[in-house]
């Protein structure tokens, strides 16, 4: 709508443009539709994060557990202690290894689904998503039984004569790794599938016609075009895996302390909310930096694909 900066007393106002008004109403309507989502995010994500940030500069009376708000940095400086740095390093290493494993396992799966068609593709996708129909904790306990010392994997390997001695996976870092990969694998497969499905089959045919081997086609055509999916999958897996504390508790037997467990202990067992908040904020900040880096790479990759 035109804005009239000056008005002449006797000049008639221009008639409203009905088309523009309808457009403005439609835009406003669309914005209104976003309100519940925005409100939800503000209320249950931004507000708690803001609260955590405020808490992180406070101090706690460990007798009454009353938090006194202030501007102390001591909660942040203590994160530098070896006691907390080691769990951070372990968490990041676990996250990196689990993400890489998810990528290596997930890529062929996603490619197979992307190349399938019709009902077969739908069935394969369903297979990937079915684990999400079960509660996360129940799934983790399911893995617990599978990798237990006398569980089905051990029994099968033993009966086939592949394993003669004793293998112990549950309550080890390998057990935690298996649990994390199993839990987050679908989050890697789905974005990869979206990227791979978009690849025009004629590009692959062209590569073949030009004499490229399968390996070269994969390296020079498929992988570059799948980069947005790889980045999206990496973000979806690496971020929650870094703060993971339930899987290490159930499958790791708590013999290895991860940063998620340290944060949880601060809130639940010690009652030092400001320290727990500072740790959570620090971890979020690290992840945010990683996220921003990956997003910038993703934008560049998408632009290149376009």
């Amino acid at each position: 709508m035109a804005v009239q900066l000056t008005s002449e007393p006797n000049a008639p106002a221009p008639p409203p443009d009905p088309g523009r008004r309808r457009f403005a109403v439609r835009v406003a309507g669309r914005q209104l539709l976003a309100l519940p989502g925005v409100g939800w995010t503000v209320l249950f994500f931004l507000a708690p994060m803001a609260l955590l940030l405020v808490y992180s500069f406070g101090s706690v009376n460990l007798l009454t557990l009353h938090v006194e708000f202030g501007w102390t940095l001591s909660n942040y400086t203590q994160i530098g202690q070896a006691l907390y740095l080691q769990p951070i390093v372990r968490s990041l290493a676990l996250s990196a290894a689990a993400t890489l494993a998810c990528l290596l396992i997930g890529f062929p799966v996603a490619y197979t689904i992307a190349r399938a068609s019709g009902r077969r593709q739908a069935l394969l996708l369903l297979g990937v998503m079915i684990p999400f129909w079960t509660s996360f904790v129940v799934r983790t306990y399911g893995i617990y039984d599978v990798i237990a010392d006398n569980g089905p994997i051990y029994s099968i390997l033993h009966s086939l004569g592949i394993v003669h001695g004793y293998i112990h996976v549950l309550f080890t870092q390998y057990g935690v790794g298996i649990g994390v990969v199993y839990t987050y694998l679908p989050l890697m497969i789905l974005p990869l599938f979206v990227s791979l499905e978009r690849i025009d089959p004629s590009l692959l045919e062209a590569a073949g016609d030009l004499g490229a081997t399968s390996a070269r086609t994969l390296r020079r055509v498929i992988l570059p075009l799948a980069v947005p999916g790889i980045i999206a999958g990496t973000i979806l897996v690496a971020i929650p895996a870094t703060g993971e504390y339930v899987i290490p508790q159930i499958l790791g037997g708590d013999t290895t302390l991860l940063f998620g467990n340290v944060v949880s202990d601060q809130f639940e067992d010690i009652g030092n909310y400001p320290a727990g908040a500072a740790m959570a904020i620090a971890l979020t900040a690290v992840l945010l930096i990683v996220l921003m880096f990956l997003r910038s790479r993703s934008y560049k990759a998408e632009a290149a694909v376009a």
Partner: protein
Amino acid sequence: MSVSDGHGSPRITRRAALGRGVGGLAAAGSLPALLAACGGSSGSSSPAQSGGSLKGTLVLLSYPGWYGPKEFADFAKLHPGLHVKSEVSGTTGAAATLAQIENNEGAYDLSLGGVPTAAQLSQAGQLAPLDIAKIPNLKLVGETFRKALPWAIPTDFGKTGYAYRKDLVSERPTSWHDLFALAPKYSGKITMLKYDTDIQGSFLKALGYSVNTKVQSQLQAMQKQMLSFKPHLQAILETDYSKGLIEGTVSIAIDYDYDVAAAQAHNHNIVWVPPTEGMAAYVEGWYAFKSSKHLDAVWDLMNFHLEPKNYASFINYTGAAYVEPAAEKYILKRIIDDPALRYDKQNLARVEFEGYLGPEQAAYRAKLWEEFLDA
């Protein structure tokens, strides 16, 4: 009156672990339910009952599924119009429970908790002193427990010892030092429960120190002993303490008395060891909040709970170690005869209750615990 459990799905608590103590082998809570079905009905001969004069809603903060279906229903028969609502304390940690109370001041009339929580709340001025005249059944509770938990009516207690599989362990250990000596031989076949005060207390007892010591050198010795023991651990368990023991993937488990008693029902090769050096123990009970507007009803409910028949019904349901010998004639024989659970003066003599050590000591011990986990 009706009983409603609180909301949300709580994390695994020490109490909830009782129901899950038999791991995946039995559905959570099925054993207590069975015991409750076998147990006598809770009577309603509360001497302090005030008929139907008490009205309103009593809110009890407690563990999930910790009371049988008749616990409050029978109380309701005495007090039509009085509603007891059992809210769930949502987490394992004592600090989180305290925070829940702090953040919801006035929301609860009474709560279940141990010495550290009650003492901390008392020091913070939140608890109402017990009106003993209105809880005459309190005198039926063993004096040891009343002294250990003066802010509350004691309801149950637990000891930390260890258990072993006699078919997998050729030796017959009886002490903490026996366990330490056997650790290298059974390395990787030993588990430990994850509850800092109980484990630290056990290692202190093993070294001949008080569970509640504040002496730096003794705490350092404890930490050294714990760190040297850790490499032999298969796991430090938040729940399902005895699952491996039942299945045979674990030979020795540092565990609670009640959990071992429940596990023995599934595997008769499991042997409970109350170590000769002594045991760290917790006692817990109901305490009332100063902010409650229904304190008379709270005292009446407490007295009702300690009525021998009612108390026996509670013990038969939970399978916990009992604090009221007067209720023995109504308690299941299985519990009374269980060496881990019975009211045994010899056992009690070995027990030292965990106290509240103050915020600085609590923080220091928490840090030692984190260092132990991180090692």
